């Protein structure tokens, strides 16, 4: 088990190294090169020269990469130029990350909580109206652009019906105390339950929009996987042994069918990060997604390089954790 984890960690380090190289090359290939990318087009020649020297752009390229990697390891990515001018890019990222984590957790809970039961039900009623209907619904769900869906939800439930807040993470003027950056958790910890409830209301629409695609994917994987397991010999054996259908369902079918679903959930984190860019933009949510969207619009590359690196690292780490969880559930994986 330990060897499995160590091997996967070494692989992960390799991925991160190549990734940093790609981000480095990306920064260099941006319009106007690295200096314009960091300072903007209108910087004075003196500032450009100063930065060029500070960045060591007169050095050979492998030295430059080494400098870049060293600074990156210290979390030094320069300051934000446009999104929040003057703030350290890495600090900005850390400050806004909790919002996205909170949103993603709610979205993945929604997607899993609906996707697994519905996928299971669809498989049990294979080829029924419910099965075919939900397959079509999940296909339509994937065909709708996420930001358009977010807009529709916002338009009807927030602007027309006034049921839920239009944007942001929490109403202004509540005077809520923030300690962890997770607003719902903050409200619960400080016993400001109205603040927590307000934060939850702000989460409903964005998380619904964000959950659609993971929901559709988890639903279909669960359905396919349950269908496959229902066909297995051991299920037939269990039935012929006369086990109650509850034991068969729980211990034989669901337990085995959920194995591939676990990995799928891990893979959806990548999709969540992308979905968050579009969803948060629509709701001005103020998380990483919103920040990335603004950074792209205003070409704030200092912020972007942190976000791209961290998004990919988050994705890789989450998948490492999922792989470890998977190895715990299913010992056969470890032997590979």
């Amino acid at each position, binding site marked *: 088990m330990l060897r499995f984890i160590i091997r996967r960690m070494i692989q992960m380090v*390799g991925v991160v190294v190549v*990734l940093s190289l790609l981000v480095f090359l990306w920064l260099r290939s941006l319009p106007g090169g690295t200096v314009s990318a960091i300072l903007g087009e209108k910087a004075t020649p003196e500032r450009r020269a100063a930065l060029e020297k500070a960045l060591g752009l007169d050095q050979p390229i492998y030295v430059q990469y080494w400098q870049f990697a060293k600074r990156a390891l210290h979390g030094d990515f320069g300051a934000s130029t446009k999104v929040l001018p003057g703030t350290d890019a890495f600090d900005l990222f850390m400050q806004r990350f909790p919002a996205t984590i909170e949103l993603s957790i709610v979205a993945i809970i929604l997607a899993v909580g609906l996707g697994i039961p519905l996928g299971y039900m669809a498989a049990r009623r294979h080829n029924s109206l419910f099965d075919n209907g939900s397959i079509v619904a999940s296909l339509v769900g994937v065909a709708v652009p996420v930001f358009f869906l977010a807009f529709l939800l916002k*338009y009807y439930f927030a602007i027309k019906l006034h049921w839920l807040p239009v944007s942001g993470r929490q109403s202004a003027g509540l005077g809520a105390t923030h300690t962890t950056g997770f607003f719902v958790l903050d409200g619960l910890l400080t016993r400001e339950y109205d603040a927590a409830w307000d934060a939850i209301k702000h989460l409903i629409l964005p998380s619904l929009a964000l959950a659609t695609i993971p929901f559709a994917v988890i639903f279909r994987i669960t359905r396919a996987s349950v269908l496959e397991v229902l066909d297995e010999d051991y299920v037939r054996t269990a039935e012929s042994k006369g086990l109650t259908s509850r034991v068969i369902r729980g211990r034989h079918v669901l337990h085995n069918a959920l194995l591939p679903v676990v*990995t799928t959930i891990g893979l959806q984190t990548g999709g969540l990060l*992308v979905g968050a860019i579009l969803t948060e933009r629509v709701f001005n949510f103020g998380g990483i997604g919103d920040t990335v969207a603004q950074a792209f*619009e205003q070409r704030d590359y200092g912020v972007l390089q942190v976000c791209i690196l961290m998004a990919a690292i988050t994705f890789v780490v989450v998948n490492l954790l999922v792989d470890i969880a998977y190895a715990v559930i299913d010992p056969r*994986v470890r032997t590979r």
Partner: protein
Amino acid sequence: MDNPLNPNRKKQRIDDLAATAGTGGGAGSVAVADLTVGDAGHIAESTGVSLIASAWSRLRRDPVFLLGAFITLAFVLLAIFSPLIAPHDPTAGLLLKEVRPQTNPIPGARPGYPFGADSSGRDIFSRLIVGSRQTLIVGVMATLFGFIGGLTLGTLAGAIGGWVDSVVMRVVDVMLSIPSLLLAFSVAAIAARPSQWTVIVAIATVQVPIFARLLRGSMLAQRGSDHVLAARALGVKPSAIVFRHMLPNSLSPVIVQATLVVASAIIDAAALSFLGLGNPDDRQPEWGQMLGKAQQYIYDHPALAIWPALCIIVVALGFTLMGESLREALDPKSRR
């Protein structure tokens, strides 16, 4: 080499897909054997029949495929004949006199203009019809470029092997670890002057690693297979083995993937426009661009966004339905 329980499911799914065709003659013969057992009456028809032909006999009767194919065909015909169908010139500001920048920037629907006009006074209905062409171009070209890139990398890795394989696959893995749209946004940001082509290249980049893995997987699976061995024994040149014997047998999962990619490319183009990374030149209308640009007036004039969004959803659904039913028809494992 690949344990079926390999936890890295995203890669695994791609490799699985590759393996279904990857066994080359094997997959075909399995499929045929499957069929001959099932309908003994059609032995004469199905022996020696290619995987494609046996899949076609299933697809012809599949309502999901027929619906998807109908939508796709209608879309392609519309794209070809759009200038003849559109009632007005999509680039002319016919209702420019009705545009009131202060009070009412969007002329509403009126006789001859069923959906009204946009902020430049151009007929939306005609723009939607003519926009089908650019939308098709973006979808197909992005898929094609992604395929060519993936083909080059995948063939290099799969056919040469050794250190080339390791290097190429490491880069591919890293590309897969960056959330897909984030990668597309980053590539689009490199362009100093965004255009339709930068959008296409950005979307294609995301598809390169997926196609590469797909092709490499099936190449590797075929390396040791009988028909490649036979060709080698006959003294066929290595390049001919790769291009005439291995590649054609790898194509069926690639066709499935390509069909699905067209749908996501059209949706992704809309997302790029939404974040301001799309093609700024709107003389040639494109649905994603129309949807992206509609954000400006979206709360007062949601129809401006809803029509292009509906077009995108229907077309994306068409390609997805077709791709999914193709996948089922070409995958011997899913025959139930």
